[in-house]
């Protein structure tokens, strides 16, 4: 099968189609995902292809969506639920943490919840209030869960396949502002990507830049800018946030001695802190300089006019990188 040039949202759609065709137990559910094809069009065409039994428009009730996915998953189905924006996932939290993540443990393996909850995550598209939040850490804290945040179309495709096939619950957070930002060749080969390994997005030797989701785009741009200055940045995509593959990051930092972590969510309690804490524990001796975090501020996500004040950009990334090199000059 030839690779098609796809935007990220199209790769999501392709993965859903592909896996629904391959496995009749896969069902999708959520608000406006049927006839309407999803508010971002992730589920376009599924209703016509797979019918209303497997493409389930739910009432406007996010707790129900999560709970229904739990119920479906206990019966051998593989539900892939969509929440319209990650800011509306909070009503799912109780169901996920108090049920989905622990049914296997509670029943000593008798029942389990192989289910996926997908949602667009993050800001940058001038959307209305509550449509631009970053929820990864809310979920990544929860034991028994996997959290995935792809950064490009090919990874979105392969990781979504992996998430659907995984025997445990997975939260799948898609980078809203990258949905149509760029295209990439994606082959519909049905190949899943591993769910527990960071991607080395680009190799480098002077500093390790770590990010995930939409911020990977700006991180790549920052690496480009650094390259022009003769600084070689290794870029790590932590697309599988939970469980966290620190080995790849530690190996990289052992090589570069410097690390900056980039996230969009507020600073305090973000996943960047988890990574930095692991570096403070295991990487201290390889570090030439403090580990710096570039993040959203500890504020409410501003409405559209000020969202760019909040969201980190290349300039802010480069500023922190410079601080690192000021503390530990190259060479």
């Amino acid at each position, binding site marked *: 099968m030839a690779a098609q040039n796809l935007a990220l949202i199209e790769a999501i759609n392709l993965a859903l189609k592909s896996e629904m065709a391959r496995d009749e137990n896969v069902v999708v559910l959520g*608000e*406006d995902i*049927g*006839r*309407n*094809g999803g*508010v971002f069009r992730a589920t376009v065409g599924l209703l016509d292809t797979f019918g209303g039994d497997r493409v389930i*428009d739910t*009432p*406007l*009730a*996010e*707790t*129900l969506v999560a709970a229904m996915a739990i119920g479906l998953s206990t019966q051998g189905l593989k539900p892939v639920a969509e929440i319209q924006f990650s*800011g*509306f996932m*909070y*009503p799912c939290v109780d169901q996920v943490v108090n049920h989905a993540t622990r049914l296997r443990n509670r029943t000593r393996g008798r029942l389990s919840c192989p289910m996926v909850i997908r949602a667009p995550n993050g800001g940058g598209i*001038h*959307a*209305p*209030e*509550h*449509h631009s939040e970053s929820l990864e850490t809310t979920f990544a804290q929860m034991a028994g869960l996997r959290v995935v945040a792809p950064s490009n179309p090919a990874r979105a495709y392969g990781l979504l396949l992996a998430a659907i096939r995984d025997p445990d619950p997975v939260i799948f957070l898609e980078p809203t502002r990258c949905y149509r930002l760029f295209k990439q060749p994606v082959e519909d080969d049905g190949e899943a990507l591993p769910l527990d390994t960071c991607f080395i997005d680009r190799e480098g030797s002077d500093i390790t830049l770590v990010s995930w989701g939409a911020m990977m785009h700006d991180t790549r741009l920052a690496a480009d800018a650094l390259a022009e200055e003769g600084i070689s940045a290794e870029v790590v995509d932590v697309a599988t946030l939970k469980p966290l593959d620190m080995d790849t990051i530690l190996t990289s930092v052992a090589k570069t001695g410097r690390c900056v972590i980039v996230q969009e969510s507020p*600073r305090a309690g973000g996943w960047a802190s988890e990574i930095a804490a692991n570096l403070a524990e295991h990487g201290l001796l390889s570090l030439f300089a403090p580990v710096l975090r570039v993040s959203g*501020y*500890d*504020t*409410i996500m*501003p*409405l*559209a*006019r*000020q*969202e*760019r*004040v*909040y969201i980190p*950009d290349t300039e802010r990334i480069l500023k922190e990188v410079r601080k690192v090199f000021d503390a530990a000059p190259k060479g």
Partner: protein
Amino acid sequence: MDSNHSATRRVASFEIFYTQFLSQDGEARGDLPAFAKDVEQLRAMYQLMIRTRAFDKKAVALQRTGQLGTYAACLGQEAIGVAIGHALKADDVFIPAYREYAAQFARGVPMRDILLYWGGDERGMNYDSGPSMLDFPLSVPIGTHVPQSIGVGYAFKLRKEPRVVLVSCGDGATSKGDFYEAVSSAKVWNLPIVFLVSNNGWAISLPFNRQTGAETVAQKAFAGGMPGEQVDGNDVIATRFVLERAIERARRGEGPSLVEAVTYRLHDHTTADDARRYRSAEEVEAAWDRCPVKRYKAWLENSGHWSAADEEALQTEATATAEAAAQEFLKIEAQAPESIFDHLYATLPKTLEWQRDEVAARGPIAGAH
């Protein structure tokens, strides 16, 4: 239910009533409510309806020309907002959904603020004049605002204030647990709350008959032992009448109730939506026949309360008012970037000062405005 079985007896029964004064063609049925004797009020209600429609049109136009963010039009639902605006007293509290702009205007929200809000500016929620100063900003997370009414109503009751809270939401919101937690408990304390549900038949692409197994929204009131009733939400006379009755009952200490205003969303869900994907042109066309403006205007004219000259003057004024609001909105200065810290806490904790300083030092950002 095998209700005839000798071991079975009936223990409770419930009824739902529907009220409509003005038929689709603007004919009056039954004795009109007392307020309908006050011609000035009748005219004011119509004026608010038309100004709201003009505003709505302008807002959509601003969005289509890239001057406004996503906007949720109220086309076809104006009568409900007008009825709320006229039924509430100044010191009541309104906790709105997002399509009752007419009510917000009546309570003093400047049109500019609504534009600011959908334009992506927090200042659009700082209603600073009239009764709206007491009101909540609209709630985007659907239905989550509904149980907050319980706290507001409880405060009124605790202080023995003769005030009422009206909380509104859409038919989609009635699927949310938040809605039911409020409905189920309001009567426990016999709180002065009116739950208003604008059932416009759709929640984005989901029609009401796929939203719930219930035949009406009104019957959901029974989950809380409250009265529930339906009203023709495109009949401004009926809607105001039913709401006023519910509000005054609540004010007299007779407890909460639920009103389902049956209406139709004539516009796309928001400017980001294309309703043709999920509903037929015929359905929408048929709904235009039930338009609240058309019907009310016909009745006002037939009753001699409204003339062609009145209409012309109003249309001109309404368009100008909306235009002026748009200009005011477009000219407003950007907030300072560091204003994102201004109202985070009553006083910014000192551990966050460096973040504000960083933003302030950076100055204006491309793309922020």
